[in-house]
């Protein structure tokens, strides 16, 4: 299957002409040689050489909470401005496009995994749940990338992240649960325990009221309201605390990616276990989803930065919200596959190489 991978990448790069490739390489460098990806790299190296860096999990969770709150709050703030100027005119199309992509990507993922990769129903659905959802950190990195290239994304992108979070997981879990119904039915007969549905419903509810959604959507509303009702002077300190261009957000991102690198480093060892197909999937699927994100974003009227970021978040895979939900609903699925693919392949690929490529794709489809 590696040949597939090896041949596919150039095949795909063939889309680009020499000059574009040059630009990609150049922005690759500009993107890679910045603290955020370098901290991820440091974490990976540290794990590989059994170094002693230990990030307390409470710090990791605290930063995750801060990042989600920031994304939501600033999103709500800018949404309020957008709304005051244009009402919902500029927003509804991108919102619909995002919702559509949120429903499409788990299905594409499932089909590829099940019929190209010949994986079991549970494993295919489990991995599809991860790739159907999104990674807030990938959003944050993509956002700082476009900010640094002086093409800031449309103000309502954080809203799109929130929209993209749930549907993918939900659809993949429903597919998986439904299709593996027979086994589970047999099992439940044997043990005489309530049939899986209950479990599924519960898991879906937990996804929809999970930490990521509650914090992003909640702070989005809070940011929106306080922008409308507070005087700017009083609003300023909150803005400074949460703003994504600010030192707190960027610095927190460094520490967070250091920890993600430490974890990804461990998963690297599992690459052999997961096999060449999943490695190829973890690189090619994002490129496809990324292109869809860029393309539909462009149709929906997003600007250059916006298309790039939408591409990045559609291409990204969830590794926080999805795993426990999948574990509960599809216990037969082996988490090693999904988490290794999402965290050790797709995430590094996106922040290192993917984002600049989506940026070029966005130019290529004519976004500006």
């Amino acid at each position, binding site marked *: 299957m590696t040949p597939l991978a090896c041949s596919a990448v150039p095949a795909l790069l063939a889309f680009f002409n020499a000059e574009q490739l040059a630009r990609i390489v150049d922005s690759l460098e500009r993107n890679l040689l910045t603290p955020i990806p370098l901290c991820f790299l440091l974490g990976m190296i540290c794990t590989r050489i059994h170094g002693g860096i230990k990030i307390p999990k*409470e710090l990791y*969770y605290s930063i995750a909470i801060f990042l989600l709150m920031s994304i939501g709050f600033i999103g709500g703030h800018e949404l309020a401005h957008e709304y005051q100027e244009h009402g919902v005119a500029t927003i509804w199309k991108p919102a619909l496009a995002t919702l559509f992509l949120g429903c499409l990507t788990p299905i594409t993922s499932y089909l590829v995994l099940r019929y190209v990769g010949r994986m079991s129903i549970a494993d295919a659905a489990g991995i599809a749940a991860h790739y159907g959802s999104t990674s807030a950190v990938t959003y944050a990195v993509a956002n700082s990338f476009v900010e640094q290239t002086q093409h800031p994304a449309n103000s309502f992108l954080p809203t799109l992240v929130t929209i993209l979070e749930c549907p993918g997981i939900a659809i993949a879990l429903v597919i998986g649960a439904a299709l593996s119904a027979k086994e589970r039915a047999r099992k439940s007969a044997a043990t005489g*325990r309530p049939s899986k549905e209950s479990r599924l419903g519960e898991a879906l509810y937990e996804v929809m009221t999970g*930490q990521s959604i509650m914090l992003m959507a909640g702070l989005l509303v809070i940011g929106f309201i306080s922008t409308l009702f507070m005087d700017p002077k009083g609003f300023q300190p909150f803005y400074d605390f949460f703003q994504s261009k600010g030192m707190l957000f960027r610095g927190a991102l460094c520490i967070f990616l250091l920890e993600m690198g430490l974890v990804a480093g461990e998963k690297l060892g599992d690459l052999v276990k997961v096999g060449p197909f999943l490695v190829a999937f973890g690189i090619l699927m994002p490129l496809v989803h990324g292109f869809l994100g860029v393309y539909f974003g462009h149709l929906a009227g997003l600007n250059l930065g916006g298309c790039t970021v939408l591409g990045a978040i559609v291409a990204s895979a969830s590794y926080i919200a999805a795993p*426990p939900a999948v*574990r*509960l609903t599809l*216990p037969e699925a082996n*988490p090693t596959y999904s988490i290794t693919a999402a965290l050790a392949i797709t995430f590094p690929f996106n922040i290192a190489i993917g984002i600049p490529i989506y940026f070029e794709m966005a130019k290529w489809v004519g976004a500006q």
Partner: protein
Amino acid sequence: MQLYPLRLVTIVGESVIMDDIAEKGLELGATGYTLSEVVGEGARSARNVAIASGDKTMKLEFVVPSEVAVDILTHVSHEYFEHYAVIAWLSDVQVVRGQQYVK
């Protein structure tokens, strides 16, 4: 001082299932439970995933009468042993004012 013989049920496994087991334990007749975060390694523990702001593995303890102990272990064994990383064992304990832990 009166001591009353009961069973201590100890379950160590993936965090994702521990709340459900704790609840089920109360349903099955336990008057309470004690839960703590641990780090573990086992045959299948590689499958464990972290839950929001929590550890991957937890330890759950019930002090219960024999029948309840057996019911809990049977439930865990049937429900979770196949697909989840979990270990469960039983031991004898002498409990202070133990009657109050018998429903």
